[in-house]
């Protein structure tokens, strides 16, 4: 069996695909990749189905060995990468041969990086998805010693490279007022919307706490409302007045007042913001958020046209790389087009 053997891996690593839908009514949250654009990049680079599953790294990677030969791709947060000790650039597809060692280091830009394989990881499917959901005990939990089976390729892959998407530079997040915004006074909402925000250290797949420079935000009413369904991107205000933006592994329902909802198209940009990153908000209408979503999907559809051939196998460039290291440049992709 061809597969990806895990020699070591950060404990925050999960298997992710597009997640579960249809089970929120049973208390099962959607899960799925924190950055669905990055997930789509991997599918494009390998020619995989949209449902294919990948490894999702949360800022830290691991060490892997190929059993048999197959194609892999990297996407999302740019992480230090080496194949058999030779540095390689990110956001590209390349072939592994039996015994090749892949080292994925720490994220250099962004937070969530992805390692995709031919045909997707063949881990167990629970309620329609391979997404690991740690609290519920759903899906595979990657750990040292695993041999993760890879899928079948529909067609022969090749070596491609994608440019870094613009959302890694994005510092404004768009939001819509929602069903519970009325529990906050107009003045409080205006104060919130005009604030500068910083990503706090309390962040994981459930959500991200953010610190506004306007001080705590308080609901005027609605503190006794009964729980109901929570959307991806809902901004919840807990007792101490700190906003939390709820993401893929959020609780499916909750009773804290929610001041607004992030535009779906801006979720990847938020997910990739590192602790300490700053952002501002822009209030948009539903129509504008839907237009943003349509444009986001169009960028996903356009990915194959964005791919450039990676002309040289970076593993043949040992000399160039040692030159780079001496020069203090820790990237391996500058010479691809030589």
């Amino acid at each position, binding site marked *: 069996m061809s597969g990806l053997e895990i020699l070591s891996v950060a404990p925050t690593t999960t298997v992710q695909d597009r997640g579960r839908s249809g089970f929120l009514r049973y*208390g099962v949250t959607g899960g799925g990749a924190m950055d669905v654009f990055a997930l789509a990049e991997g599918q494009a680079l390998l020619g995989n189905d949209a449902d294919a599953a990948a490894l999702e790294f949360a800022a830290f990677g691991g060490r892997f060995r190929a059993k048999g030969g197959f194609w892999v791709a990297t996407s999302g947060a740019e992480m230090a990468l080496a194949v058999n000790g030779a540095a390689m650039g990110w956001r590209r597809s390349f072939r592994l041969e039996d015994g090749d060692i892949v080292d994925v280091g720490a994220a250099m830009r962004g937070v969530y990086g992805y390692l995709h394989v031919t045909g997707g990881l063949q881990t167990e499917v629970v309620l329609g998805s391979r997404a690991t959901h740690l609290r*519920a005990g759903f899906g595979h939990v990657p750990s040292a010693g695993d041999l993760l089976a890879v899928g079948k390729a529909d067609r022969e892959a090749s070596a491609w490279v994608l440019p870094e998407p613009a959302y890694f530079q994005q510092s404004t997040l768009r939001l819509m007022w929602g*069903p519970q915004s009325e529990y906050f006074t107009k003045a409080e909402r205006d104060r919130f919307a005009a604030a500068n925000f910083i990503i706090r250290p309390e962040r994981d797949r459930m959500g991200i706490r953010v610190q506004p420079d306007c001080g705590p935000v308080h609901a005027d009413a609605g503190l006794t409302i*009964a729980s*109901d369904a929570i959307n991806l991107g809902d901004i919840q205000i807990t007792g101490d007045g700190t906003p939390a933006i709820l993401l893929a592994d959020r609780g499916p329902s909750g009773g804290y007042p929610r001041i607004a*909802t992030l535009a779906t198209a801006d979720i990847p940009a938020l997910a990739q913001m590192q602790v300490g990153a700053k952002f501002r908000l822009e209030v948009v209408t539903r129509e504008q958020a*839907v237009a943003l979503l*349509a444009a986001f999907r169009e960028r996903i559809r356009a990915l194959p046209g964005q791919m450039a051939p990676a002309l040289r196998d970076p593993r043949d460039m040992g000399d160039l790389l040692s030159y780079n290291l001496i020069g203090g440049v820790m990237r391996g992709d500058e010479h691809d087009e030589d």
Partner: protein
Amino acid sequence: MNRGSRLPGPPVLKVSGDMGILIEFGATYDPVINNAVTAFDAALNADLPLGVIETVPSFRSVLVRFDPGILAFERLHRLMADLAASRDWYRAPPAASRRVWDLPVVYGGEHGPDLAEVGDLMGLGADAVAKAHAGAVLRVAMLGFSPGLAYLGQLPEAWDFPRRTTIAPRVPAGAILVAVRQSVLPGTDIPTGWRWIGQTPFRSFDVNAAQPFRLTPGDEVRFHAIDAAGFARFDNAAFLKGQGL
């Protein structure tokens, strides 16, 4: 029950993100509001337009998640508004498809370590708490928080005490948890601030079963006390067969 002019409503439709429309039947947990939610959700699901991803009923509202690239917001909004106006949902009869569950529970001991504490809160002895809980006819008001976790309502006023201010790191699937006039039945092991008075051996959630989720909003639930030996003997498959499942 004649609630006369105290009837809540009418239901209100609200935009909920760029992929959702929410219909609120009220703001609080109230059996009349909750029954309206269950009935509206069932009617909506009987004829779902293409592009609806899922509907999520809660204590007091239904969130309809849809793909705006497939289904126009205006069309879904009109459909929901028309359905909302088509009848008085607050007077909807309970769903004909609802099940009546009589679930065995061991109260107290290692299966319910907070039973004595709840007795103190209610001014009752532990046996009286167990008897009162087992005597209540409850209704699945919603599933949420974690896979298959059922919120059951509504217990009498005497059960209107708060949750703990601290979180127990783990209670088992099947734990009988109480506070704020509700009883909660988790389908998986969970951390919780609710007070743990008993445990049922019935598996309300089994991820490997053809039907993983056994409890549905609107179902009626009552409990009867068993002893620890009965808990150990319990045969889930035989129990389901006895229910005609």
